[in-house]
């Protein structure tokens, strides 16, 4: 055997010997404690130590439960995610390959995108309404912007629409009895409350188009077109009954 082998063997033997001594030391410790068992039995452990230990164990249990829950959520959510992705992909494929489905899907989206502001001037809620008039009389703006003239007029039940044009641009003036429902497109529009002859009106600006809605004691009106809002306000304030 060479010197290195001898050294290794010695080392291993010594470690085994130290282990043997260590084991004897443990037996000594236990014997010593057994010899003092009478005193040890009389020991009163402070309640704070017991409480601390219970809290320590409980905290471990709580963290373990939370970790288990998180693992479960992760597992479930990854499966749900996979299912959702498969569903979405299938929907996309079906939408673009089957026309009937495509039409329905696009119609669905266009309906949900529509947004209207519904306005109704109710006789009971308005401060200025005295009575409703019939449609024998109608309102006409005494101020009409330069270059514009009456192009057409239409009647739908109690609603009357007058259309004005300068040959290029057009705007419409509608009037109806108070109590008529109006659906005004206010989605992504700028709206402003204004007063027209003492009545509250609503100015709606969207994509360059101006819509002015107001009412008086008898009727509700709107002006709709691409003119300046000040022009529409002046027209609104110039209404005369004919």
């Amino acid at each position, binding site marked *: 055997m060479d010197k290195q082998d001898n050294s290794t063997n010695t080392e291993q033997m010594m470690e085994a010997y130290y282990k043997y*001594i260590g084991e004897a*030391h443990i*037996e*000594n410790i236990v014997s010593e404690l057994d010899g003092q068992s009478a005193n040890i039995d009389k020991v009163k452990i402070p309640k704070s*130590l017991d409480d601390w*230990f219970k809290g320590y*164990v409980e905290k471990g249990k709580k*963290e373990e439960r939370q970790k288990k829950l998180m693992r479960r959520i992760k597992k479930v959510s990854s499966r749900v995610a996979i299912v959702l992705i498969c569903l979405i992909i299938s929907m996309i494929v079906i939408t673009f390959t089957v026309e009937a489905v495509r039409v329905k899907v696009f119609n669905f989206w266009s309906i949900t995108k529509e947004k209207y502001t519904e306005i109704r001037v109710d006789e009971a809620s308005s401060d200025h309404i005295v009575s409703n008039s019939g449609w024998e009389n109608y309102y006409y703006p005494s101020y009409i912007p330069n270059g514009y003239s009456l192009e057409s007029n239409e009647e739908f039940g109690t609603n009357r629409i007058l259309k004005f044009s300068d040959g290029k641009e057009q705007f419409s003036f509608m009037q109806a009895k108070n109590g008529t429902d109006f659906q005004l497109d206010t989605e992504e529009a700028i709206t402003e409350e204004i007063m027209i002859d003492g009545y509250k009106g609503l100015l709606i600006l969207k994509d360059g188009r101006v819509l002015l809605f107001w009412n008086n004691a008898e009727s509700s009106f709107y002006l709709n077109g691409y003119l300046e809002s000040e022009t529409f306000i002046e027209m609104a304030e110039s209404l005369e009954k004919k």
Partner: protein
Amino acid sequence: MLLFLSVIENEVIRTHLEDIYYLYKKELWYVAKGILHDEYEAEDVVQTALIKVSEYIDEDMDVKCNKTKGLMVIIVRNLSINIYNQRKRRATINIDGLEEVLADESNEAPETYVLRLDQSKWIADQLSQVKREYADIMTLKYVYEYSNKEISEMLSISEGNVRIRITRAKKALQKIIGGEISG
């Protein structure tokens, strides 16, 4: 109350720790109070010992055997001695003459150790009489097979201190076997 950094998550290990606590709490408290003579410090030491040992419990451990009991007592005892020494503002280890000790390690005589196998308990007792920490640290190293790093974490001492204590313990053992130290 100590702030603790780790929490037991494995149910089996938690059960083992609960068994250890309820089986040995009186012994541990007794050992700690015996050294420190202070209930609050003794409580802190027992808590620390439980937290530290929880990192070394494995699922196969037999908590009711003397080996586990011995381990808990060794940890509590050494932690108590540390606190006691800190309180007294004494260094826990005297590193004077370190070079001499390390140099002497190469002069072990294997035959001398083999001759006294039948007196292991006496030798262990003698080693404890020289310095209890020596016997404890030899036990942690060679019976429980903890690394120097693990022992240093367990006993809240530096790794350097661990190495020095082991060296000194071996030296003391050599002297006991050689008859230089006897009871």
